[in-house]
């Protein structure tokens, strides 16, 4: 009985170890999106995303919508005020898990990954998949990701007049440099 207990205890400690996997958070990063129609192409960039991942394959990022910058200020105004309603929905957020490769473990070198998770934009939650690469060196992790979203999935309506200027499919590129998260004590 005592032996059995010890095995249980050891197993328990092992699992605690697994649960407390190393977390990496971003020191710098950017999110860029592109809208392309036959008539107009434009992009916007945000240099203030918070990105994090754990060594066992959890990925999360949060973007202050307020911080997207456009070449044309008027577009920025319309984006914030009319489309994203950033004062009501200040953040966009994604939380997901790496599903490919199976049983992902962060290791030195470059890995192609596929992430599945929940995206929240404009107050609307939707499951999405994204592909990307994760490159680990000794002290940092470089993350790239690409995915498309449909504005109509997130209740972002394009007025009829602007249907030629704004694409319903928006391509998003994420880029971040992560470092091991320091414990707070």
């Amino acid at each position, binding site marked *: *009985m005592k032996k059995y*207990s010890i095995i*249980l*205890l050891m*197993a*328990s400690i092992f*699992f*605690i170890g*697994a*649960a407390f996997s190393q*977390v990496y*958070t971003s020191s710098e990063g950017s999110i*860029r999106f592109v809208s392309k129609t036959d008539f107009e192409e434009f*992009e*916007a*960039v945000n240099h203030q995303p*918070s990105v*994090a*991942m*754990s060594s066992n394959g*959890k990925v*999360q*990022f*949060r973007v*202050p919508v*307020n911080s997207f*910058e*456009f*070449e*044309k*200020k*008027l577009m920025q*105004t319309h984006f*914030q*005020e*009319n489309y994203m*309603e950033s*004062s*009501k929905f*200040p953040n966009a957020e994604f*939380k997901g898990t790496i599903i490919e490769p199976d049983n992902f473990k962060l290791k030195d070198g470059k890995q192609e990954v596929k992430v599945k998770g929940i995206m929240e934009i404009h107050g609307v939650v939707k499951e999405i998949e994204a592909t990307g690469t994760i490159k680990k060196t000794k002290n940092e992790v470089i993350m790239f990701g690409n995915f498309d979203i449909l504005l109509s999935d997130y209740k972002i309506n394009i007025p009829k*007049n*602007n249907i030629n200027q704004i694409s319903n499919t928006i391509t998003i590129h994420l880029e971040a440099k992560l470092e091991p998260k320091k414990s707070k004590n």
Partner: protein
Amino acid sequence: MVRKVIIALVFLNTIFLGAQDDGFDLLGDEEDQVYSVNYAFKTTKVVNLQSLEITDFGVLDFKMMHRFGSINNGPVEAFGLDQATVRFGLEYGIVENLMISMGRSNVLGNKNLDAFLKYRILQQNTDNSIPVTVIALGGAQYLLGSVHDSKTQMDRSSLFGQIIIGRKFTEDLSIEIAPTWLTNAKNPIISGPWVHHQHQWAIGIGMRQKITPRSSINLEYIPVLTNKGDVFNSFSVGMDVETGGHVFQFQLTNSIGLNEAQFISNTNEQWNNTGIRLGFNLSRVFTIVKPKL
């Protein structure tokens, strides 16, 4: 006893792992970021009064303002539609928070140039450590044309200074008040007999209430507090409509003038006897300097 502790540990551990799998949060709750509160008005004007907005750096705003004659001119004058008062103006954001404007207008045959500088001193922010936006505005008007040749340079000029304090109370409602000082050459064509240069205090009050995400109703009232003479206070009701790159402002107002010296000091008609007119402002912005993304 030991066994109980171990079982409890294993049990807790299972719960903990379960929690990890369902909803994780690697970022945790970050401190709420503080942002500037933007877009209190659709454009730099309420109706006649300057709003809390400033043309962004590198952006050129072409402004056309147009006022018809007053409705009480009657059917012969097509209820004012035969008359046209126009100001063409350009506004440009020189640096962040500072814009310049120059314009030319023609009020009842009275030609003039005007210019102003508008600077945002404080901007309201989301945690209310700055609860209001504060703007300083200073400008001048100069009367052109031989009809004013007999006047001194001083008497052809008007100056004004204004502080605009306002707040975006909700997504839809913004209110501002604007204490204003003017030193003014009274305009004889508008206001009757010539009066020499005088100082005036006035206070502008403006608000906008959105009715849809892209349109709003605007109100403004500008009582003159000192040396009012025989003019009336400017009162306007307007509607903003935003369509793509343009903002259209339609209004009913008793002021025919199109810059501060005219509509604050020289409003000579009143709402009481339908001395009101239709008008519109048109704003079209162009990006001159593209920021590096």
